[in-house]
């Protein structure tokens, strides 16, 4: 009651991956996942990304629920920043919500395509997709590593 609502396009995919095969625990888990897929494929739906009640694709997710996972909060902020290139986006909930929905709608089409020829449980297909499309290097190294370090203790003034 009263929390901000993310409006997104919720197709049968959600039924299949969340309800039927329980690959994602909550709708918003899938929502975020699809958003990063959208980011990765650079697919974004600028219009009609909220779903419509006429074709039963109206999806609503409470922001606070999504924020229950810290990392999701981070992802939403990054995504909004990436999309607008405006640092203010890092704290703009509305922008973040909309951005999330847009990218999610884009990712939706990608994943729908990806598992369209899979009958039954598409877990392995999803997994394959993730493995195929993971970032080049994992782990933080080089300059970035330094940044991480400096932000950390330097910020806190704990450097001895």
């Amino acid at each position, binding site marked *: 009651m009263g929390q901000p609502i993310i409006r997104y396009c919720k197709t049968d995919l959600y039924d299949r991956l969340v309800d039927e095969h329980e690959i994602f625990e909550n709708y918003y888990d899938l929502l975020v996942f699809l958003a990063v*897929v959208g980011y990765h494929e650079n697919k974004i739906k600028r219009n009609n990304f909220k779903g419509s009640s006429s074709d039963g694709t109206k999806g609503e997710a409470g922001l606070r629920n999504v924020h229950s996972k810290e990392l999701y909060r981070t992802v939403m902020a990054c995504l909004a920043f990436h999309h607008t290139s405006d*640092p203010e986006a890092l704290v703009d909930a509305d922008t973040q919500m909309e951005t999330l929905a847009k990218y999610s709608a884009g990712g939706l089409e990608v994943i729908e395509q990806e598992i369209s020829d899979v009958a039954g*449980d598409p*877990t392995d297909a999803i997994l394959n997709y993730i493995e195929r*499309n993971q*970032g080049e290097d994992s782990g933080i190294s080089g300059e*970035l590593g330094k940044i991480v370090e400096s932000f950390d203790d330097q910020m*806190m*003034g704990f450097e001895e």
Partner: protein
Amino acid sequence: MQIDRLELENFRQFRDETIAFATGSDRNVTVVHGANGSGKTTLLNAFTWLFYGNVDFDTRPDRLASEGAMANAQPGDRITVSVQLQFEHEGEAYIAQREAIYEKRSATDFDGEMIDSEVTVKYRNNGSWQPRNNPGNTLDQIIPERLSGLFFFDGEDIDELAGIDNQDRIQEAIQNIMGLTILERANRHLDTVAGRFEDEVDEYASDELSELISEKRAIEDDIEEFKRDRDDTQRRKERIESEIEDLEQKLERLDESAALQERREEYREDLAEVEDRIDSLDEDIKSQISQNGFVPLAMPLLKETATELDQMREEGVIPSELSNSFVDSLLDAGQCICGRPLEPGTDHYDKVASMRGDTVADGVEQSAIRIIGHLNEVSDKESEFFDSVDEIIEQRKNLYDRRDELEELIDEVSSELQGMNQTTESGQSIGELEAKREQKETEREESISEIARIEERIERKQEELESLEEQIDEQQDEREEALLAKRRQKAAELVQDELEGSFEDLKDQVRQWSNKMIKQTFDDIASKDLTAEITDDFELKIWQDVGDERVEVDKSTGERQIASLAFIGSLVNIARERYESDSDSEYFTGGIYPLVMDSPFGALDKDHRRQVSKVIPSLANQVVVFATDSQWEGPVEEEMRDIIGEQYWLDFDSGEGEGEYPQTRIATEQASIRGD
């Protein structure tokens, strides 16, 4: 017996003909040439008619009198049919004659009615001919009718001797030639007579003895019955045993089937377990995806953002101080930006709290800081995700393999079971079959005990019998008549015993002699490593040497005929040897016989004809052979040329013309040579 001369009058197509037989010791063969239908068989019949009044004609057997004679006669006239044989036997000269008188009844009657028939035998006694009182008997004693088939035979019958299942004929021939028939019959008759005397004993016996005798008979009956029971029970036992075997087979199949089913069950359980584990791993994967699946894809986003923010910070776009509200929220959350928990009252807490106070743009930098702060975590999470997932996948793969393996095993067992179920009876469980088998076992054991019981009974009865017989023998208080009858019975039995033994011995003795001669004959003439013998069972068999073994030969007609001839020859020889030997035979004196053979070459090929021809002269003192031209020419003529004593040709005139009737003349030269 030596035959000298045969005269025929009005005997079928022989109106008035004579044959003089060869009687020499080296040229002892008489050959009669004649085409089929010219009268060869009739000549043979002349002998048997003369001796025994028997004829065996294919056509018109009742018409004995010559057609020509009948034709020339008037109704009411009588025609005499006669066959006369001059012969010698045991040093005496004989003339035997059979006459039959036929009356022509009408102009068209050619059979005639026989109104008289007579056989006479005369012998020369001191220069004059004396009649024999019992001519039929005399003749039969010279060549007994039962032997006649051996000495007057149709060549076509000859191979029957060596045929299958002809042991009886062979035994009969042996018995006959040696007079063993006498023994065999005496045996039987004595048994009957002994039985008669026993009845007499019974009749005259004291009550006691009488009773003993009927007891004895009753026991004998009992024994027979017991033996029947025993045999029945024996058969029953065998039946049960085969039923048991059957059941055991079924059980075996069911046992195998049960074992297989158990194994399959195990496999199925394993499979279920494996599938459960696979399911669980699948769930683990899902869980990972749900929780961290986004991470690998989000990682570049975070990195990118962090890099940009850092740049912005350097450019001064983002303040680097912490905002108040941010610190507040940190304190609220109990968490330091560095991730360390904030405990009120700690130095750390105070330090962070002391950072409050500066007023900077709210939120952005916290966000930036948070983002950057998360990078490590994200990185760890990413590794964790892949490590976990990889391991799960690996485990799952192994389980997939195991699942495939188990499925294959289950299939194998299932098809094996299917194969078995088709052969076992449906609907019978192991339990049922087991029960049935036990029951049958019990039955079987019962039948065994029963057999033993019965045999015990039989034994006891036999003991009783023996003791009764002793008692009967020892009966003291017998009446004279009974005693006498007893002695007579005993006499009959004892003589029977001895004759029985001698009979068997002699039969075998003759068999052995015959064997020797047959072997010799065969060795002399037959080719291809063949031997012939009469077995212990009186079968005439022909053997061939094959390597180290000998194999019974499926006799060709040729070999059969030779073997049969050799056999007859051996008997004739044995008879002759008995006759000529000095030893006093108790049973039979042997004898000398001629052989009269109608077409012995009939069904033979050239080689076999040659061989038979070689054998013929040695078969008997006198041999008479009938042959057609085609049978004669070639090897037969070659072989026999030098041993022919007399030769005749049957000149047959079919009498087709008006007033002509069939007639055969016996000529001493071939018609062509005579120029008729």
